């Protein structure tokens, strides 16, 4: 049985459209998008509200998760990195995890067939 990986991509929402296109081209079968607040090297910015300063150090990011078969996993990693990178701080991260099992609820299929 081939194994599967979950790729978790943290990006700015501006890059989402491009990423979606890229992933579709690679043939990923699905994605989950979550709004998150990120904290990383990008240090946030300062705003003034009614004369009082406040620092916004949690920045809105989008977390894109997709589960893929091991075959295309490396391809996806490379393509995503290339698509999204601008070279600026705050470009984001990719984390990868092993997936122990996958089930398609509609049919009950499992493993690779489910994704």
């Amino acid at each position, binding site marked *: 049985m081939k194994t599967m990986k979950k790729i978790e991509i943290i990006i700015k929402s501006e890059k989402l459209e491009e990423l979606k296109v890229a992933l579709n081209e690679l043939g990923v079968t699905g994605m989950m998008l979550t709004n998150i607040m990120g904290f990383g090297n990008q240090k946030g910015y300062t705003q003034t509200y009614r004369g009082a300063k*406040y620092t916004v150090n949690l920045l809105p990011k989008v977390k894109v998760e997709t589960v893929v078969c091991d075959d295309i996993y490396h391809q996806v990693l490379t393509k995503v990195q290339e698509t999204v990178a601008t070279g600026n701080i705050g470009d984001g991260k990719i984390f990868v995890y092993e997936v122990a099992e996958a089930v398609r609820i509609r049919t009950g299929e499992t493993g690779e067939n489910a994704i």
Partner: protein
Amino acid sequence: MEIAELTRMLDVTWVLVAGALVFFMQAGFAMVETGFTRSKNAGNIIMKNLMDFAIGSVVFFVVGFGLMFGESAGGFVGTTGFINPTNLKLDIFETLTPGTFIFFQTVFCATAATIVSGAMAERTKFLSYCVYSFIISLVIYPVVGHWIWGGGWLSQLGFVDFAGSTVVHSIGGWAALVGAAILGPRIGKYGKNGEVNAIPGHNIPIGALGVFILWFGWFGFNPGSTLGASLEIGHIAMTTNLAAASATVVVMIVTWLTMGKPDVSMTLNGSLAGLVCITAGCQVVTMWGSIAIGVIAGFAVVFFVGFFDRCKIDDPVGATSVHLVCGVMGTLLVGLFANYAPGTENAITGLFYGGGLKLLGIQTIGVAAVGTWTVATAFIMFTVIKKTIGLRVSEEEEIRGLDVCEHNGPAYGDFMTKI
């Protein structure tokens, strides 16, 4: 129909319409205060604005009106007309009818009362706020009202407060200041090292709507204070509008220059500052005078929002800067800018138009007297409340939000809120 009767009808019609506009300002206050605070307390601030009007309407009818317009005890307080104020024999009842006049006075009283909720927002116990509402409409406001509008000692001195910069706004403002000071700042507002942390409002559009509603209502508040049909109301509408407009422009520019960007919520406060500041003198100043007053109000409100923060008095919506500072200042500026009916018997002339210092002196006395009375009574009231039922919610309630803790759940049941 006789002409006298028709005149009365026009008086009544005009004052009733103006009174309805002033009533609508309650919606304006509710929206401004809701918009400029956090979503977890939105239901609570709504409820406070609603209840101060509802409670105030009843107690002002039963007691307050008598204290304000009843037979005067030495110019200090009215002593008759309780329970059934319509039985009073006031001259103005002859023109406006009792109903119209009491209605108009009720909505003014409620305006003073509702100012405080903004300054004490997001941390005051609901029960305590109800008690406060009861007392301000019962006695604090009516007594000053008597001095200035009920034929009391200040009016006899020649004190000019046409539509209530002092009577309405400064009373609300002083009470707000005392309340906010005794209550203490919201958790997290001031850092350990003295820094001021912004706690942004959650709904600027609805706050802005509130400002527009208030501005709209002010065309009842100021022109309606003629208490009858009058050819002066157009002039009053102009001075009102020009002061508000110029204060708005000034605040926009000042925040841009001093804070880097034009600040939306502060500029909205600027409009209100102009409106409050022109209220005392709207009838007696020229149009250019009103622009000057608006400009001064604009500078003042920006400065004082910062000032109160440096004093660590946390006023989430800027009510003290708007209503207290500009209420006081507007009253004093009458002493400088008044130029009413020059050369006639009724002339009211300020320093800048050759009237000398006399009017300014009287205005100062009035401001001081009202300040003293309101600070004293508000201090006693809030201290007693604090010592008995408590003024402030618990820390946990403040963090979770007053809507969930003091009422029946969140004001926005469907929306996800930020971390």
